[in-house]
C-alpha cells in the first residue's frame, strides 16, 4: 500500500461532474420506467401478472422505493439501538491491524 498522491487525477467515476451525471441518468431512467408502466396500463398491454395489483401502473417502482426506505429506517432506528454493541463485545481487538488478538 502506498499513500495517495495529491496530484493524481480522479478516475472518471469519482469526478463530481460525472457523479452528478450518473445521478441525473438514474433519475431520468427511473422516470422513464415509471412512465413506461403507465403506457402499458393505458394501452392495455398484457404483462401476464399473477396478481391484480401487479397491473397497477408503477406498482414495482413504488414497492421497491418504499421497501428500501422502510428497510433502512427500521434497521437504523429500531434494530441498531437494540443490537449494536462495542466492537470488542466478544473479543478484544486491536484497532490498528483490524486483526483480532488474544484476550
Amino acid at each position: 500500500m502506498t499513500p495517495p498522491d495529491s496530484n493524481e487525477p480522479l478516475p472518471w467515476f469519482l469526478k463530481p461532474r460525472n457523479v452528478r451525471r450518473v445521478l441525473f441518468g438514474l433519475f431520468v431512467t427511473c422516470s422513464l420506467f415509471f412512465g413506461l408502466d403507465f403506457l402499458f396500463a393505458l394501452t392495455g398491454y398484457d404483462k401476464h401478472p399473477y396478481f391484480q395489483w401487479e397491473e397497477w401502473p408503477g406498482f414495482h417502482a413504488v414497492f421497491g422505493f418504499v421497501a428500501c426506505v422502510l428497510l433502512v429506517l427500521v434497521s437504523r432506528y429500531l434494530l441498531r439501538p437494540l443490537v449494536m454493541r462495542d466492537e470488542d463485545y466478544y473479543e478484544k481487538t486491536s484497532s490498528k491491524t483490524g486483526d483480532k488478538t488474544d484476550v
Partner: protein
Amino acid sequence: MSDALPPSLIYLLGALLVPFLRGRYRQVFALAVPVVAFVNYYLITKGVHWRLELLDFELILGRSDAWSLIFLHIFTVLSFIGILFVIRENEPLDLSAGLLYAGSAMGVVMAGDLITLFFFWEMLTMGAVLCLLARKTPASGRAAMRYLLVHVFGGVVLLAGLVLHLAAGGSTAFDRIELEGIGPWLMLFGFGINCAWPLLGAWLTDTYPEASIGGVVFMATFTTKTAVYVLARTFPGEPALIWIGVAMATLPIFYAVIENDLRRVLAYSLVNQVGFMIVGVGLGTPLSLNGTAAHAYCHILYKALLFMSIGAVIYRTGKSKATELGGLCRSMPWTCLFCCIGAASISAFPLFSGFVSKSMIMSSAAAEGQVVVWLALLFASAGVFHHAGIKIPFFAFFSHDSGIRCKEAPLNQLLAMGLASVLCVFVGTFPNAFLYPMLPNVEADYVPYTVGHVTDQLSLLLFSALAFTLLMLAGLYPAEIRSTNLDADWFYRKGGPAFHRLADKSLNALNAATSRFFLGKIVNNITNFFDSGLARLACLLMTPFWKLMGHDAAQIEEERHALFRRAKIGAFPVSLTAFCAVILLGLLTAYYYVAGK
C-alpha cells in the same frame, strides 16, 4: 456400470496427496484435480453406481440423476474457480481444505442412502474447519472451534434422528421422508442447522468472516447448498419450509444494512438467498423445485464471485470493514468490475444470473396463490439489491476515499473472478444454453425474458437504487460504525461461557461438598468402626459386669484398656471363644425349639 470414478474419491485422494507435493508440482496437481473431475463428470451415466456392503446395509456412493448432476456440475466448476483463486499462495492447508470440502459435498449429493449421506455430511464440517484454520489468526482458531461445536451438535441431532428413523422401521433410502415421529423431525433440524435456519444459523454469519480469503469461497458454496439439496430430496413440499424460507430471506437483510464488515454483509445476504431456495423446496411444485436447483447453481457462482472480490481486497489491503475501505476503484479497477457483476447477479438484473433463477421461485409462489410469501420475497429482492448489490461495491470501491493505494489483485485471482463473472453473465443471458436443460423437472417450462418481467424487475431495482441515493443524499442512511451486532450467536458465545461458569459454580461445588461428606465423614467413620468400633462396644458391654464385680474406677480403666487391646487385635483367650460358641449353640437350640413347635 459406469466408467467414471466417484467424484468424491478423486477429490479426497487429491486432498491427501497435496501436502506431499512441493512447489509448482503442487500447484499443477491441485488445479488438475477439478479438471480431471470435470472430465469425469461427463463420463458419469445416469443410474445407480458404486454400491458397497457394510454390515446389513447397502451403501450407494453414486446415485446420478438430474438432481445430483446439476449440483455436481456447479460444485466441480466452483472447485476449479476456488482452487485457482488460492493457487498463488500455494498453501497446502488451503488447497487440501478446498479439495476435501468439495469432495465431501460431492459425496453428499451423489449419496444414494442416508448412511453414506451422514458420513460425507460430517466430513463437510472438517473441510469447513480447515478453511477457518487456514486463516491462521487466533480469532479464526476460535471461530473454527465454535464452528466445530455447533456442527458436531447438528451432526448428533441428525444421527439421533437417523437412528430413531431406522429404529421405527424407516429405510435408509435417501428419498422423500414423511415428517412423522421424532426421528424425521430431528433429521429435519439436523439439516436445518447446516442450512442456517433462523436462530439455528448464527454460526454462518459468526464464522464466515473469520475464514481465509479462499476458504470462505468454499464455505459459501458447499455447506448450505448441500443442505438445500438434501432438503429438496427428503422434505419437498413441506409447508413449514415455506415460512422458514421467508424468515431467512427477510430477516437477515436488516442486519446487513447496519453491518460494518463487508464479508459479514455477504454472509447475511447468503442466508437471504438460501431463504429463496428453501421457499422453493417448501412450495414443492415442479417449477419451484426447478427454481431451487437453478438458484443454487447461480447463487454459488455470484456469491463466490462476491466473496472473491472482497477477498482480493483483503489480500491487498488487509481490511474488510466498510469504515476502513472506500475509493478502491482507483487501485483495483478489475476487481471492482467483477464485484459489480457479482452485485448485479445477486440483485437479479436482467442479463445476469440471478434474474433467470430467482424469478422461478417467485412465480411459483404467485402461481400457488401465496400472496404474503410473494410480497415478502419481493421485499427481500429489493432489499438484497440494497445491501448486497449497492452496499458492497459502493463502500469498498467508491464512497469516500480511504486513502489506500494498492496493487490490483494478482493474475490468478483476476482469472478466477473473471471466469465466475463470465459464467454469471452467460447463464443470465443464455439460460437455455446449459442451465435450464440441466434442471430436474423437464415438464416445468419457464420463460424469464418477457417484457413484463424485465420492466417490472428493472422498475423495482431502479427505484431501490433511487431510495439508496436519496437516503444517502439526505444523510438518513445509517453511517458505518465499528461495532458488533448481537445475533443468535450470542446464545452460544455468551451463553456457552455463562453455562460453563454456572456448571462450574454449581456442579463443582456440589461435587466438593459430596466429596467432603462421603470421603471425609462417612468413609472415615466406617473405617473407624471396623478398626476399633467392635472393641469399644465390647468394653461398653463389659463395664456393668466389672461394676457388679466391685471394681473401682482405676481397675475398670485397667480392664477396659486390656480388653480394648485384645479385642482390636482379636487375641481373645480360647475360653472366651468357647464361651461365645456355647452361647451361639444355646441360641440356635432355643431357636429351633421355638420354630419346631
